[in-house]
């Protein structure tokens, strides 16, 4: 099957055979695809190789047959985006998240949309934390694990901004004492649901902790590699 001018991003690439690359791509209409790019590791393929880096919006021409697609051509769909410093590390986290939480050939247009919006936000943001929480929220919603950020899990009551909750992936927000390690303020859950930045750093921190727990649950208890890297990189000044 020929796929033409498909909007997509390279999430990851590795050497494949002698002169080729195996790309993991996120496409708008076909979801995540394994794509072989032939001959791009030779001197002649250098110009195309340079395009095939993560974070660049691309238009892909593919030949899809069986498990892997073959790249026929790739052209930039817009100006090259540069994610430098912590934004680059955050971008690698985004990519790991997408690869680990979605299957191949399983389209999620809303996820593609969220991904495409997040990259320029990361490039512009002073610190990536909030942008990552927004993306995690949208990714989970796109793949069918939407968070419940309006009502509590105990009795379906609207979340109380003053109360504290523990968010459990399979249930939702359950009331708990403010002293509990996993406690999140109702106000912070509501902020995330309404796409507003939490009022303070503590709010962002507790949302990060909560998201990790939820993602870990959906990964069957596994950890993401990027957590280690991000934690070490971002605790430094």
């Amino acid at each position, binding site marked *: 099957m020929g796929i033409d001018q498909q909007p997509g991003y390279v999430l990851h690439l590795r050497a494949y055979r002698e002169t080729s690359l195996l790309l993991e791509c996120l496409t708008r209409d076909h979801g995540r695809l394994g794509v072989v790019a032939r001959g791009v590791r030779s001197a002649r393929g250098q110009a195309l190789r340079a395009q095939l*880096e993560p974070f660049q919006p691309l238009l892909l021409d593919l030949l899809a047959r069986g498990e892997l697609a073959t790249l026929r051509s790739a052209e930039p769909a817009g100006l090259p985006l540069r994610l430098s410093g912590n934004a*680059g590390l955050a971008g690698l986290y985004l990519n790991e998240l997408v690869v680990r939480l979605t299957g191949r050939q399983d389209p999620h247009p809303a996820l593609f949309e969220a991904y495409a919006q997040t990259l320029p936000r990361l490039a512009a943001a002073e610190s990536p934390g909030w942008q990552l929480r927004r993306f995690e929220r949208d990714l989970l919603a796109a793949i069918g694990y939407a968070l419940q950020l309006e009502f509590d899990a105990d009795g379906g009551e609207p979340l109380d901004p003053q109360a504290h909750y523990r968010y459990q992936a399979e249930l939702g927000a359950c009331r708990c004492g403010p002293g509990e390690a996993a406690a999140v303020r109702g106000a912070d859950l509501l902020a995330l649901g309404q796409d507003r930045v939490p009022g303070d750093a503590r709010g962002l921190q507790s949302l990060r902790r909560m998201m990790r727990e939820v993602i870990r649950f959906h990964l069957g208890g596994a950890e993401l590699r990027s957590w280690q890297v991000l934690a070490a990189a971002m605790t430094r000044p």
Partner: protein
Amino acid sequence: MSKLLGELIEALRCLPGVGAKSAQRMAFHLLERERERGLKLAGALDQAMRQIGNCTRCRNFSETPVCTLCASTTRDRHTLCVVETPTELAAIEQATGYRGQYFVLLGRLSPLDGLGPQELGLGLLAERLGEGEIEELILATNPTVEGEATAHYLAQLARAAGIRPTRLSHGVPLGGELEFVDRGTLAHAFGSRQALE
């Protein structure tokens, strides 16, 4: 075909660029005309595969705990150049007059490949940065997204140790024409333009 011959041909195919056909040609060539040098090759291969490990200071290939480069008394001990692979170390040695020391990551930060700070030996690197001799950390990781992220991470390590991080500049290749340079490279080169002296 003899069993041993078949095994040799199969074994030769692990070499880069060697398919079934050239593996067969190599095997016949060795058996027909180069028995002695074939034995020499086998011996060298056996020794190298068994005895070459990684230097305990720079992680480059070495058959001694500390490699000759690290042990050398004539190399500058104030600059440390970080590369992703031994191949890239060799390329810098051959192309530049660099006289400092190296550190080989044997990879780059790549969460999806399972490569994090531990796999890259960054504990060892931090130890070396903490020894107090190094003044400049040259970040010669590749100009890829992962190479850049790695350089950023290492620059933070260096700054925390009071060491000046520097990065290889990248841009338009020598002898290249702008028209034929890809957009990413051109944008990068444009963004990191320098004042003319």
